[in-house]
């Protein structure tokens, strides 16, 4: 039976100026599982991840009903307690490896620092482990790479270095925020394969943040679709793609061009309008202005419904609402 590693309930993040970026997000990541958080820019997926890591910018306030990692209550941890977990038992990799690596230090010294700090390892031992991990993530001649600076590496190599660095202390949870968005498709496939292999080998739990439904389909065990700071649908991956139920999820899937799906020159499905700004005290469904199914009731309370056990969605429509009615 799988065991829940990260359990977040009712997470809210508020920024100064009265905007609420995350509005009651609940998600759980099991050991050895990949949970994909998918949504468009501004939906709050990155902010949710930063809130879990306690890495929010100054001026942001976080609250949650529950936030636990391997039984430890993250809400009650002070900065020192959190610093002990971060980079150690829970690690994060970002979209832009160039901005998250320190340009003034060699790859080796920044990789070694993680282990010297968390494990008190010697410089020699830490560098040995760094070299082993660089080899593990598919970097040839790791000894040479350790002595290089980030600017001397290509984008794909930098992202491999980031992943190797995140693995220095054998984390249980890896949060990956758009780890391949800045990379070429061929390199993207290599990096994603690497993450899958590492997961199989090390039993990593991965919280993968992406806007790319192709990546979601190929990587996720479970998917949560975010819109305007809320999880509007959450389901096992196979079930989400077989029976997308929230109108936003269906709209997103229609937008993705895929070979053979739509005749050339024919219209792709699209969602009219853009993601709205949600003021404090907003009620009702945030998607209603863009939704072909919207009714006056959508400005009231929206029920959380269950399509089948494990597949939840936030919409008043019944689970099997007819697709054609959307046209």
């Amino acid at each position, binding site marked *: 039976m799988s065991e829940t590693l990260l359990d977040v309930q009712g997470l809210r993040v508020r920024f100064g100026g009265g905007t609420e970026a995350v509005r009651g997000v609940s998600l759980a990541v099991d050991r050895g599982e990949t949970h994909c958080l998918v949504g468009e820019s501004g939906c709050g997926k990155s902010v949710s991840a930063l809130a879990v890591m306690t890495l929010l910018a100054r001026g942001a306030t976080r609250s949650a009903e529950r936030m636990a990692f391997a039984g430890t209550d993250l809400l009650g941890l002070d900065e020192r307690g959190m610093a002990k977990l971060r980079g150690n038992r829970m690690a994060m990799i970002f979209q832009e490896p160039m901005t998250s690596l320190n340009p003034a230090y060699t790859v080796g010294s920044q990789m070694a620092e993680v282990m010297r700090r968390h494990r008190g390892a010697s410089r020699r031992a830490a560098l040995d482990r760094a070299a082993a991990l660089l080899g593990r993530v598919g970097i040839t001649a790791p000894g040479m790479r350790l002595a290089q600076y980030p600017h001397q590496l290509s984008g794909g*190599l930098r992202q491999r270095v980031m992943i190797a660095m995140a693995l220095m202390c054998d984390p249980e949870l890896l949060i990956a925020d758009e780890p391949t968005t800045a990379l*070429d498709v061929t390199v993207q496939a290599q990096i994603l394969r690497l993450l899958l292999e590492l997961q199989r080998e090390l039993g990593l739990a991965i919280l993968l943040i992406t806007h790319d*439904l192709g990546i979601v389909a190929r990587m996720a065990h479970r998917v949560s679709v975010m819109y305007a700071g809320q999880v509007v649908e959450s389901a096992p991956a196979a079930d989400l*793609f077989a029976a997308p139920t929230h109108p936003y999820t269906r709209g997103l899937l229609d937008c993705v061009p895929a070979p053979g799906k739509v005749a050339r020159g024919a219209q792709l499905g699209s969602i009219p309008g853009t993601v709205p700004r949600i003021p404090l005290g907003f009620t009702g469904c945030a998607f209603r202005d863009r939704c072909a199914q919207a009714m006056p009731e959508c400005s009231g309370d929206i029920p959380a419904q269950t399509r089948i056990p494990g597949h939840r969605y936030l919409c008043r429509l019944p689970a099997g609402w007819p697709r054609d009615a959307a046209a």
Partner: protein
Amino acid sequence: MTAAPAIEARDVAKIFRQGTGMFSAARHVRAVDGVSFAVPAGGCFGIVGESGCGKSTLARLILGLYPATSGDILVDGRRLADMGRRERARLIQPVFQDPFSSLNPRRRIRDIVGLPLAAQGVGGAEITSRVAAMLERVGLSAEMAGRLPAQLSGGQRQRVAIARALILRPRIVVCDEPTSALDVSVQAQILNLLAELRRDLGLTLLFISHNLAVVEHICDEVAVMYLGRVVEHAETDALFRAPAHPYTRALLASVLTPEPGRGIPDVGLGDTYPDPANIPPGCRFHPRCPIAVDACRTQVPQPRVLSGRTVECLLA
């Protein structure tokens, strides 16, 4: 005699000199290295490839933003190099990737869209009416005209960039990754708009992208670039149905369609990366090629025409 192609590239090359410092020897980066193709009027020609393959340099050559080092670019049968800036601007216009940096942040939308007209000496009243008509045409409401780019979303900005490109009624639009910076729902809106404008205005599109699914959806013909060369060129259906070059096959294999359970494909390219300043001898793809043989390390493959496509591979 049929009409001249809207765009024709004849053995076009662009070599950049890098590192001409006092002590370092100059390096020559062959960004585009002998590219030829022709796009018929009204066609949509896609160029795909990884970063550094020269696709954006090629776009800039066709826009006349760089002079070619050698070779010729012809528009409607006339040499681009013989045209003046204004004439070129009337024929060819760009839409760039990033609508956040390609629009002047201090100018209002109506001025951004009207600037090409003003540069051509069109009078104020005509500019006002043509800008209003064009904004409506690309799906922007009239009140947007008075706004600044920062007040618009990414999709709205890309519509502004398209309006600016079309205001001179050009024959050709060069789109360099026009939807890469946009969310999928907005990407679909912009692709639909481009397809519609192409049909209604008879535009010729040169469409540069790293997203093969997008190219497959919108283009009639596709050229695959690798380190400055077109390694395969075919009609879209033929290319996607039966890719002949091993690099094309690897690119297609790395497209992640939203089909759960298919896993991540092994593209088999190894971990070397192409460097345009250091082009390998023989076939330039051989260090990454999963099927390379000894001959590939020494023999430069010549373009070969095979059943409706051109391929540069010794083994194809």
